[in-house]
């Protein structure tokens, strides 16, 4: 069965969609990705759709699903490389991809992911500090 490869890069998972997605392939990717997040403890997922010529409402929903499922498993999702024509079409279709982070290219997407997990790590540290402060009193 055809599959879309998921690459691991440090704390992130990297997916580059290079083929035309039909529905079953997209659903397989969704479940594979979520399982990989769980298995590897990844903190971020980067999906490169620069080679994707069209995103319809189904694909849009899958992308949204991946983002919300990963979020529950404590990983952020960034979609990168969307073609301008795809962006125009998505908005006219009425699918603004709410709740999904996007970036112009892989590089910026990586920066955004790093920032996100850094942000949450800092936040945790702050919380730890508060805890220790209470204990010392």
């Amino acid at each position, binding site marked *: 069965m055809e599959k879309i490869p998921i690459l691991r890069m440090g704390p992130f998972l990297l997916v580059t969609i290079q083929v035309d997605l039909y529905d079953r392939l997209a659903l397989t990717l969704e479940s594979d990705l979520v399982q990989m997040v769980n298995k590897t403890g990844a903190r971020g997922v980067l999906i490169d759709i620069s080679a994707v010529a069209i995103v*319809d409402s189904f694909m849009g929903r899958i992308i949204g699903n991946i983002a919300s499922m990963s979020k529950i498993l404590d990983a952020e999702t960034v979609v990168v490389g969307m073609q301008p024509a795809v962006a125009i079409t998505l908005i006219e279709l009425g699918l603004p991809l709410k709740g999904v982070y996007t970036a112009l290219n892989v590089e910026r997407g990586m920066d955004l992911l790093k920032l996100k997990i850094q942000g949450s790590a800092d936040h945790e540290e702050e919380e730890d500090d508060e805890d220790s402060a209470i204990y010392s009193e």
Partner: protein
Amino acid sequence: MIISLSKDVMTITRDQDVVPFRNRVKEKAVKIKMGLVNQTKLITAASELVRNMLKYGNGGETYIEIVSRGRDTGIRLTFKDKGPGIADISLAMQDGFSTGKSLGLGLPGTRRLVNEFDIKSEIGKGTTVSIIKWVNG
């Protein structure tokens, strides 16, 4: 008056037929020199309708035509299924309405992406949707 210049017929019975269908539509759109944004809108609309046809009508027949009206050239796509039909078309054309598990963007979203949209449905007999995207539309 709309004149049909060429007509291709494709039968859609399963998920995997969608990709070759989309490619054929793209081929025709490129042939009449449709711009990339309009191509993307047309193929996205086609993808939505073909999915509807598979989901609600168990597949069916599609016609891909190059049509002309005066100086305009365009692509007409027709989707014909023998499914259960749509009881209330005006309801089905509303944003957010869905009997299935989708986002309910399919029909109203598709209408926004194309220049002409026509839907006919008869309960128990099936649904026929036809759309036109003009090269400069």
